[in-house]
């Protein structure tokens, strides 16, 4: 169990409407990621589901039951916060046990569950430490442990990894994915990092200013973004978007080409440009090419051992099959 439905939910803070009427279905067992730029209402939406904010109108339905007026703790959801929100005065053990203790569970049973959770999260060595004595990654684990023990209908994560450094982030996101695969519980995950969204999600919800721009699997979004916003947001490095003359040639108001769908040549090609900064990652090289048809330089993904001189003249050719076309409202269309 753990299906969640939002029906015409809106939210206003004072006079400003942060979430205009919004509908969303989340299936049982799905890993759904809310993604979008800062301030677009991701956290607000998550908190509406959790019950930490009251809806201004509309209904929140969990497992078919209207929980709009139900207090957070009765909704059967667990939440992991960006700042971990551990209880700093309790040991790790007590932190994890806290929700069980609050529900009046038998102490022996609590111990068992805490032990199980801490084993699965590799926390056994730290059970008697306080959160202040843990590293960022360990704290995040404790927060997850506190969520797990309750056996919730669904997990809510609000940017759980954004306070970790790059290497740890990669590791933790793997662990969370792994966990989801094993437990099969519904998870809603908020992030503004599209890489996280792409790598973790079964279903991505792209939000902008409180509106849902597109919902779909990562590859759907990657392959057929429904508008320029989604196109620019999903994929790394970003899709190159060109409008004006260059686009008209392809019968569109704006065209989009991903860096990996541009081929580079020093002899000939469709577009002529000048090499800017090249970023050598070893495995790949991202070449930034300044091109008259675009105000921003175009990013091209090339082989790892490509060496191009700064300022050299090059030619780019887009892969026509992978070209995205958008109308003047930014909506995608097919020819």
């Amino acid at each position: 169990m753990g299906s969640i439905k939002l029906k015409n939910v809106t939210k206003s803070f004072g006079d400003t409407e942060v979430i205009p009427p919004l509908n969303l279905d989340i299936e049982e067992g799905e890993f759904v990621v809310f993604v979008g730029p800062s301030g677009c209402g991701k956290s607000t939406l998550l908190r509406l589901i959790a019950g930490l904010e009251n809806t201004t109108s509309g209904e929140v339905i969990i497992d078919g039951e209207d929980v709009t007026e139900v207090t957070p703790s009765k909704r059967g959801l667990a939440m992991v916060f960006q700042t971990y929100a551990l209880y700093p005065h309790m040991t790790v053990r007590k932190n994890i046990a806290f929700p069980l203790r609050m529900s009046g569970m038998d102490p022996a049973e609590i111990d068992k569950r805490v032990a199980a959770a801490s084993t699965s999260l590799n926390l056994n060595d730290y059970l008697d430490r306080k959160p202040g004595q843990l590293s960022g990654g360990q704290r995040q684990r404790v927060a997850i442990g506190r969520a797990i023990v309750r056996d919730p209908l669904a997990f809510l994560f609000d940017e759980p990894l954004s306070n970790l450094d790059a290497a740890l982030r990669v590791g933790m996101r793997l662990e969370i994915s792994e966990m989801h695969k094993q437990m099969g519980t519904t998870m809603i995950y908020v992030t503004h990092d599209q890489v996280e969204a792409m790598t973790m999600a079964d279903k991505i919800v792209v939000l902008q200013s409180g509106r849902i721009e597109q919902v779909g699997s990562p590859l759907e979004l990657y392959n057929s973004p429904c508008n320029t916003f989604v196109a620019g947001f999903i994929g790394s490095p970003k899709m190159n978007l060109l409008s004006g003359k260059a686009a008209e040639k392809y019968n569109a108001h704006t065209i989009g080409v991903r860096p990996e769908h541009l081929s580079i040549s020093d002899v000939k090609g469709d577009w002529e440009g000048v090499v800017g900064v090249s970023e050598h990652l070893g495995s790949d090289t991202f070449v930034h090419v300044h091109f008259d048809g675009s105000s921003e330089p175009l990013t091209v993904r090339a082989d790892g051992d490509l060496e191009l001189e700064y300022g050299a003249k090059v030619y780019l050719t887009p892969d026509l099959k992978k070209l995205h076309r958008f109308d003047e409202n930014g909506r995608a269309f097919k020819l």
Partner: protein
Amino acid sequence: MAIVAEQSRFSRIFWPTLAWITAIVVFFPIFWLVFTSFKTDADAVKPEFLFKFTPTLENYSNMVDNYDYWRFAGNSIITSVFATIFALVVGVPCAYAMAFDPTRATKDVLMWMLSTKMLPAAAVLYPMTFLTKNFLGIYDTKFLVIVVLMLVNLPIVIWMLFSYFKEIPKEIIEAGKMDGVDTWGEIKEILIPLAWGGIASTALLTFIFCWNEAYWTVRLTTTDAATLSSLIEGNRAPEGLFFGRLSAVSTAAIGPIVVLGWFCQKQLVRGLTFGAVK
């Protein structure tokens, strides 16, 4: 050592010396008071006995025998302790609600509370006497002193607690909500243990302010509830200048609180500055 923190040889010696001198100068009056309390009244005003004299405990024994020091001290302790407790009992929930469920009015309410401390006590002394004596009949009771001390300090208490509570991340309280605690549980399980340092230093400062409060305690009591402030009032201008006796009474009145202050000075800062200074 980073060069920001680096000091020349001159400043390594000069500035600490100056700091020590400043500290000694600042503390000197208190030292002098305590020092004088061990002199007889006669010695206390004689330059030739400035530092050389036979110390005596006479002033203290006189104070205990003739001035009922322990009764005043007892009242001070009882009223200050209970006023502090009640102020916290009323203040904690209020500050909690203000910090975690602020409304648009919260700021104004806080401002208003603080502004009540600016009302000149003298302006309402007479009505207060009149009310407590003739209508309520609680004049000169510890109850009245406790209530008044509590009310006088409540704005500061709420302000201090508010600023401590504001430092607690909202998420922790929300995590508690998700974990199934009710409001009382939030206060008991999360808020109080978390803000313990802040609550303790608020309590200490309130206690100090209660202890030192003189205007109301002297004017709303006669015997039963009179505190050390009254003892000071009864001794501050005796016939003849009894510096020795005066010093002993004063030392005994401020001693406990100064020592208490030493222990809590660090925590005081955060609370007093409403968290604006970290």
